[in-house]
């Protein structure tokens, strides 16, 4: 447990100076919600960083002010209920992430894909923690995924793949998203299924033999997932 916390603690400086990629950033913000000591230090370090910025202050040209005010007067504002990575950390969030993943587990000889044993139980923080650790792996590789504003991150070193994002559209009734691993020989191996929560957040994590994967696909499948893709492909990432 301490090793985990140290692992995340080490990201505090990078978080404060904005040196985390999008996925690490979102995952770390979620971690902050769980960890008071990180939160306290984050407040201090982000203020130190704000001082670095203040020290650069340069008066902008006067015309900028009127341009900004003009733009502001015609810009609609978001309402407080809309979610955003910086807001989400405050509310306790739950991902119905890997429900049904076990059901769709395919035994593929030699491929060696297994699922992390998270479900929609109370242990969401463990899932979040695992995703943070994955995202901060030295070889973590983040790719955009066209489901709302989402990323897929993989690490060959950890042999894990995560999907995380927000503003994901809700699939039709009785359907959910499913991730597929397209292997070297062209077969699509079933990955976890996942659903957006009420705010449109998605998060899923899976062990995967990353070295043998050539592409990722996401389809919409009947609840519980399928053994091979049957539904529409909504996103894909070719490696």
């Amino acid at each position, binding site marked *: 447990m301490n090793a985990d916390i140290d692992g995340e603690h*080490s*990201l*505090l*400086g*990078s978080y*404060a*100076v*904005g*040196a*985390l*990629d999008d996925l690490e950033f979102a995952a770390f913000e979620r971690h*902050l919600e769980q960890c008071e000591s990180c*939160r306290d230090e*984050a*407040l*201090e*370090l*982000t*203020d*130190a*960083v*704000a*001082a*670095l*910025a*203040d*020290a*650069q*202050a*340069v*008066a*902008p*040209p*006067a*015309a*900028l*002010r*009127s*341009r*900004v*005010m003009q*733009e*502001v*007067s015609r*810009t*609609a*504002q*978001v*309402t*407080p209920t*809309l979610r*955003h990575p*910086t*807001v989400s*950390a*405050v509310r306790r969030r739950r991902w119905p992430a890997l429900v049904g993943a076990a059901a769709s587990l395919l035994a593929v000889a030699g491929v060696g894909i297994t699922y992390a044993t998270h479900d929609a139980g109370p242990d969401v923080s463990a899932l979040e923690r695992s995703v943070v650790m994955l995202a*901060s792996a*030295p070889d*973590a590789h983040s790719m955009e995924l066209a489901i709302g504003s989402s990323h897929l991150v993989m690490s060959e070193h950890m042999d894990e793949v995560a999907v995380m994002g927000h503003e994901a559209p809700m699939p039709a009734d009785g359907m959910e998203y499913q991730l597929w691993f397209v292997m070297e020989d062209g077969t699509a191996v079933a990955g976890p299924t996942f659903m957006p929560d009420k705010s449109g957040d998605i998060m899923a994590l899976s062990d995967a033999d990353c070295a043998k994967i050539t592409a990722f696909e996401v389809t919409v499948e009947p609840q519980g997932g399928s053994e091979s893709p049957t539904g529409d492909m909504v996103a894909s990432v070719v490696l």
Partner: protein
Amino acid sequence: MSEKRSLRIVRDTPSAPDSPPDADERAAALSRDLIACARGDERAFESLYDAISGSVFGVTLRIVRDRAIAEEVAQEALVEVWRIAARYQPDKGSARSWILTIAHRRAVDRVRSEQAHSDRLLTHGRHFDASHEQPDDVVDVAYGRWEADRVRQGLDTLTARQKEALELTYFKGYTNKELAEALGIPLGTAKARIRDGLIKLRDSWEER
């Protein structure tokens, strides 16, 4: 508009004062303004603009190194602050740092998207071209002058490597992974350098 502006107090201190110019009060005022912005209060936004646009413009200029682009980025960032003001949560951090984070991310994104055309990020040289336009004397940069002195003194307590880590990540937009790669150091060392540097900076001010 011009009538309103002429009534504004122009804080124009030629040299940096020894003590923080009411740092707590300024922080509280900015937080109040930002919260009022969330309710659609444009006057509160004007006041927020005057308090922070100097820092927003300064930091974007430092990152994108081009005055015209910095103006665009600063404008986008400030309008974004207005647009998503409702998402600011006072218990999670200061209004100042929330706004500057938005500006920083925009500036870094801009540099990254321009990288396809040029290697601006890696180019060294002049930070920006001189402007032919009059600077906005309503905007508060006196705080920045005081802060610049404080930051300079704080940075003096850092090792050269810690300073380099902050420079490359915050002002050049490197991620911690890119930092590790650029310097040929393990990722863990890179993360520690950034964090240790910031902790030293913070501690240097607490001791004073």
